[in-house]
């Protein structure tokens, strides 16, 4: 009998484990995609997810990309040989390197997330009183899509104003406008198609976006300001001026002043800030944070070029408040560093990158006005009054004046080289000398890993 009992127990133990859902295991920090975005809160979090993806890693807005055009330009250089952002400054980037790969990876990943979230919006049932909020999230996603395409185009393509042929095959980027299957592999668009896509997305986004201040997010005014920038790159100067003027006319935003200019860099959501990413002690790019590049004891890879035009100007114009943002540092990589990323809460990793701010809009307006025969000087005078003590107005400004003003106002904010090249002007880099607007090195190579999937479909930028 005992044997039978025991055999029975064995059999029972067999049956005990035979339950049908034994093989269904689900993760603890993820949900299946179809269950992920079902409410307005989920949608809000998915919009936040875009900011999350673009603030954590290399070549994102809070990291190397914040000083991309500065390092490629002529006012800043890498002092150390840490070879993080340094290769940008030294022009040693190859198609096999991390920098183009990371830029491509994170921006397209964010785009895929935008499209994924947009594909889920129709599943959400929205109460009538939440309609505006819902539309705002949707608008933010479209605005993100425009901005991400634009920044990819700035890195991997020439600006339309400087391109030889905007209709040339493969002169644009690969567009990402829907959710793709894993086997999707697309060719590049033309530059014209790229900018058309960007402008279409702004067109869709703007009517949906809220006009209220929305810290860390794109609102209507930020969308308008970003579109003004895109118009300028695309040679639509009148449209750029109109958008810029609309932003300037809005009273929610005001220029920094002589009094507060040096203080705003350690603050968040300041008066000029149209759109800045929210970076926190928990979510930042660690040692690839822009602040760490801009210090001697950090990577020391973004310091003023000694004897360069910009530093010379700043050092000789003590009445210009912008000259006060120079940190003369001793230590591991001694040199003069921009003081725009001092960190918050004692943490140098924590700086909200200002993706667009009001001064930039004034400068866009000035440039667009100049190019359309308008009064460029008034924008420059307004700006300078808030920067230079005892300033007296000028009557006219040249394009070079405006571009130099951009350098003084927006240094270490990812603008310099873009501005010169899109105006078909050369820059003189500290390591390699003159880089003309049509030099192949003005744009990054498409990462080779991506091309390797099918080199007949995806075409590399020239000379890489």
């Amino acid at each position: 009998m005992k044997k039978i009992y025991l055999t029975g127990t064995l059999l029972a133990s067999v049956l005990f484990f035979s339950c049908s859902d034994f093989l269904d295991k689900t993760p603890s920090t993820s949900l299946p995609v179809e269950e992920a975005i079902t409410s307005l809160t989920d949608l809000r979090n998915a919009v936040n997810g875009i900011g999350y993806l673009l603030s954590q890693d290399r070549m994102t807005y809070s990291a190397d990309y914040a000083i991309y055009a500065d390092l490629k330009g002529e006012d800043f250089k890498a002092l150390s040989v840490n070879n993080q952002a340094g290769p940008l400054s030294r022009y040693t980037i190859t198609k096999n390197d991390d920098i183009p790969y990371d830029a491509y990876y994170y921006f397209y990943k964010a785009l895929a997330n935008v499209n994924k979230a947009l594909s889920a919006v129709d599943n959400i049932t929205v109460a009538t009183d939440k309609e505006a909020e819902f539309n705002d999230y949707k608008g933010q996603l479209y605005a993100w899509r425009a901005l991400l395409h634009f920044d990819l185009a700035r890195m991997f393509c020439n600006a339309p104003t400087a391109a030889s042929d905007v209709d040339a095959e493969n002169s644009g980027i690969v567009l990402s406008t829907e959710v793709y299957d894993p086997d999707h592999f697309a060719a590049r668009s033309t530059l014209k198609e790229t900018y058309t896509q960007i402008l279409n997305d702004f067109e869709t986004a703007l009517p949906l976006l809220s006009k209220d201040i929305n810290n860390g997010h794109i609102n209507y005014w930020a969308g308008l300001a970003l579109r003004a920038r895109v118009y300028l790159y695309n040679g639509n100067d009148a449209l750029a001026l109109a958008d810029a003027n609309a932003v300037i006319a809005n009273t929610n935003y005001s220029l920094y002043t002589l009094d507060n200019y040096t203080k705003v860099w350690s603050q968040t959501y300041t008066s000029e800030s149209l759109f800045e990413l929210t970076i926190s002690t928990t979510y930042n790019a660690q040692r690839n944070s822009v602040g760490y590049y801009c210090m001697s004891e950090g990577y020391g890879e973004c310091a003023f070029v000694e004897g360069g035009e910009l530093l010379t100007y700043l050092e000789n114009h003590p009445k210009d408040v912008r000259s006060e943002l120079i940190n003369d540092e001793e230590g591991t990589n001694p040199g003069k560093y921009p003081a725009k990323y001092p960190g918050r809460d004692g943490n140098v990793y924590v700086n909200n990158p200002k993706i667009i701010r009001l001064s930039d809009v004034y400068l866009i307006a000035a440039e667009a006005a100049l190019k359309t025969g308008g009064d460029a000087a008034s924008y420059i005078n307004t700006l300078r009054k808030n920067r230079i003590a005892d300033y007296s107005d000028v009557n006219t400004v040249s394009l070079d004046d405006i571009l130099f003003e951009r350098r003084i106002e927006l240094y270490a904010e990812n603008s310099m080289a873009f501005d010169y090249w899109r105006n078909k002007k050369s820059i003189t880099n500290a390591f390699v000398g003159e880089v003309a607007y049509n030099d192949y090195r003005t744009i990054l190579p498409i990462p080779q890993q991506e091309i390797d999937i099918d080199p007949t479909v995806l075409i590399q930028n020239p000379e890489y």
Partner: protein
Amino acid sequence: MKRKLMLLLACLFVGIGLVTAQTQKVTGVVTSEEDGLPIVGASILVKGTTVGTITDVDGHFTLSNIPSSAKTLQISYIGMQSQEVAIRSTVKVVLKSDAQMIDEVMVVAYGTAKKTSFTGSASVVKSTEVSSQKESLVKSLQGKVAGIRVGGSTGDPGSDQRITIRGISSISASSQPLYVIDGVAIVNNDVSSSGLKSQSILSSINPDDIESLTVLKDAAAASLYGSRAANGVIIITTKSGKQGKSKVSYNMETGWTEMAVGGQYTPMNATDLKEYYWNAIKNYGVVKGGMSESDAAQYSDENTPSFFWNYDSDINTNWKKEVYGKGFITDHQLAISGGDEKTKFYTGLGYSKTKGLVKGSEFERYSGRVNVDHKAYSWLRFGARQMLSFTNTKGFRDQGDQAQGIGTSSPLSILFSMDPTAVNKLEDGSYNPDAGLNSKVSNPNLMLGQSTGENAETVSSDMIRSISNLEAEITLPYGFSAKTILGYDYINNKELEYWAPGSVDGESLGGLGYRTDYTNKTLTSSSTLNYSGNFGVHNLTALVGYEVEDRNRLFTNMSAKSYSTDKLPELSNGQPYEVGSSTYGASIMSYLGNINYDFDNKYYASASFRRDGSSRLGKNNRWANFWSISGAWRISAESFLANNPLFSDLKLRASYGTNGNLPTEYYANLALYSFSGGYGDESAIYWGSAGNPNLGWEKSNNFNIGLDWNLYDRINLSVEYYNKITTDLLFEVPTSIVTGFSTNWQNLGKLKNDGIELTLSTTNVKMKDFVWTTDLNLTRQNIKIKELPSGSDVMYGDGNMYLLREGESMHSFYLPKWLGVNSQTGLGEFYIDPSLKSRDTEVNGETIVDGNVTNYYSKAGKTVVGKGVPDWMGGITNTFKYKNFDLSFMISFQTGASLFDYPGYFMTYSDGIRLGSFSVSKEVAGNYWKQAGDVVDNPKPIYSNPYRSDRWSSRTIKSTDNIRMRNITLGYKVPVKKYVNNLRLFFKATNPFLIYCATDNIDPDVDINGYRQVDTPQTKSFMFGLNFEL
């Protein structure tokens, strides 16, 4: 042993009733051949009866009432070969140890098999060989078993080592075998650590507790483990007690270790480095500054000294000895075992400690094991096995994942960051804190081995592992028996990483403390119903079974930054930073069956079947069937070969079958949104994985044919051919980043492994005082890609350095072809299009000289420049015994594989690009271009080199062909008879030297994909020890 007991019991039952009237009486003594001592508790049975007794404490026995019809006595004792002797009034029996018997009966999937009747391909490694490597049982497999390759990653104590059995049958999924201890599959390849530091989960198992290790290679042997057997199976059987006199043994060894290939990683001396730097700056002036040679020389005179601590001195500090010193090993093992007819026990206690070459790296293990077997009734047996081990490792981050980069605070990086013109100690006796070329690196003596203090950067782990194993076996009528095993594998690993506030990595956060806690619980239950029957010449065994495995993992992490002090590393001394926790689960459910038939011990046939379902696969393809068939023919049992000593045994066997492999990821099949992100103070969610609902098993189809031949009872020869084709490869297919993901798990492609294995064991000399035996194994292998998604190449690995191409070997290096240094220009040269295989090009029928050559790396095209897997490999062990001395040495060899010299990229081939951060390898001194006509290996160094000739090319690929002395052991058995069973003293050297190596100053033992890492290299050790047995 079980079978013997069964036999014994069967004899008892059968014997009942065979009592006859006439009786006789026998007295005798039983001794052991090995030491001549009496055997206590040996069983004496009159053949064909139930009459029996056991020997007393002096080994004596007396048997009366023996039926006069009886002619034979059977004498048996656990651990000894049974003997039959004719009945005389006084008998003297000398029992031989059944050491050979282990060869005869081997542990296989879900049971044991007689080697003679086994139709599959399997090799057995004995306990003495396993326990010769104290840190991990994996190390003991090197050079011992045909078809096994042991990789090396880092030489730091306690680090992981990957092995392959019969090549590589997977591209993206695990290529590691399944480990089964006492019938229960255990966790091996799974992540139970943070990955900051390579850590071997297997090192938690004390090699001294292992009785035998069976390596299952083909489908017939492994298919019963179907789902996870594609990479082979290693079955570990732990020691058990033996009936009779209790045994107490104590083994210890201690010794030191050094870098195995001492010539590697030597930086230039001060003079050479100053000259190299000077040249690099001068060339910078010429190449990038457009200066004349003389202007550039002056420019260099002015600028070079600023790189150094004291350029004008003759200080020449040897930093290598400050970074890599000697390591130490201590190992103590105590084991007590014994038992009686009903209960047997084994208990082992072990302590092992290894100090690494680099200060602060350490491995320590305390382990205990209790194995108990109890026969409650004649038909019911219980077994309980419990292992508990505590493993502590200390050290630093390493590059175990082969990701790009070298940590600034890693030992090798520190060594090459040091300035030879800087003194180690300042005048006041303190260490020079500014001795680095790279200002972030202060001094190895201030950075390494510091668990607290200004520069401390450490990773330590504290792992507890418990493996519990309960089994019950019931003997049922009609040849049936049922067995159930319940296994519980518990791993808890607590890690602490600490970066002091002033350290290289900790500085920006004001110090960082990071604690992780991994708990891994695996519950396994397997139940089998076994049948065994003999019908004359027909022998049949069969089993059916059911098995489930449920694995759950909990991971928690927390960190603190902004430390108030560098003296207290615990997290409470900093400010709270990040926390997280997550769980992971995976399960497998299986049905299995197996049938073995033999006819007259001459013809054998066997078949097995297993059906598996796994949670890791997509719902649509979750279940799969695995099976095998096999057969063998024992030719020597045929009458035409009977009694021919040339064929004392001859067996031909063949098998065919399928095995499977699972993804290493838990949820690769699921498309998921991750909810763990954040944006500012708000939550953020993002698309975390693309998933694949059709993800299914990776399947391998195995064919094996083998011949086992024993000649004159002295020579054992096995030759095998295998052919393994893996289809539906679990493949992390590169996808366009535009989809949001750079890879996707799919079942694609085909991989073929084939090879020939030869194993030869000979007894060359066998005399009374002198024995010489030789064991040789030799493997020829081929690992070829057969089919890829749409036939196109796939590049993978760090910087896409590996290529998968149809027809090419697995782990082929795909890099530009380096042509050497142009003796006129001093620049490195590459082919633009390597497929032309010519320096010249032809355009419109006109030859353009050197048209296919470039100095710029970025213009160089890629080609296959080598492979990481060997063609031939093997090992040979010679063992000599002379009187009380024993000597053995093992030599291993391999050809056909290359390594990718990643450290060389930083240290050797840098061509000036790393000026200011690294020094340069000694090999480059006097071997770089200076003037026209120089025929050298290295181009002229240029600071901020625009050509980037330093980047990976065939220049970075080096042959690993080598013959290596792996092991030398010399022992002496102290002739003490009284009280002591065995006392042996020994000296043992592991990896003492390379007999031949195609590449100088490189350790050819690298990971299985041929990647030489920047971590601490492997060691050689010299140990003294003793074995003692009571």
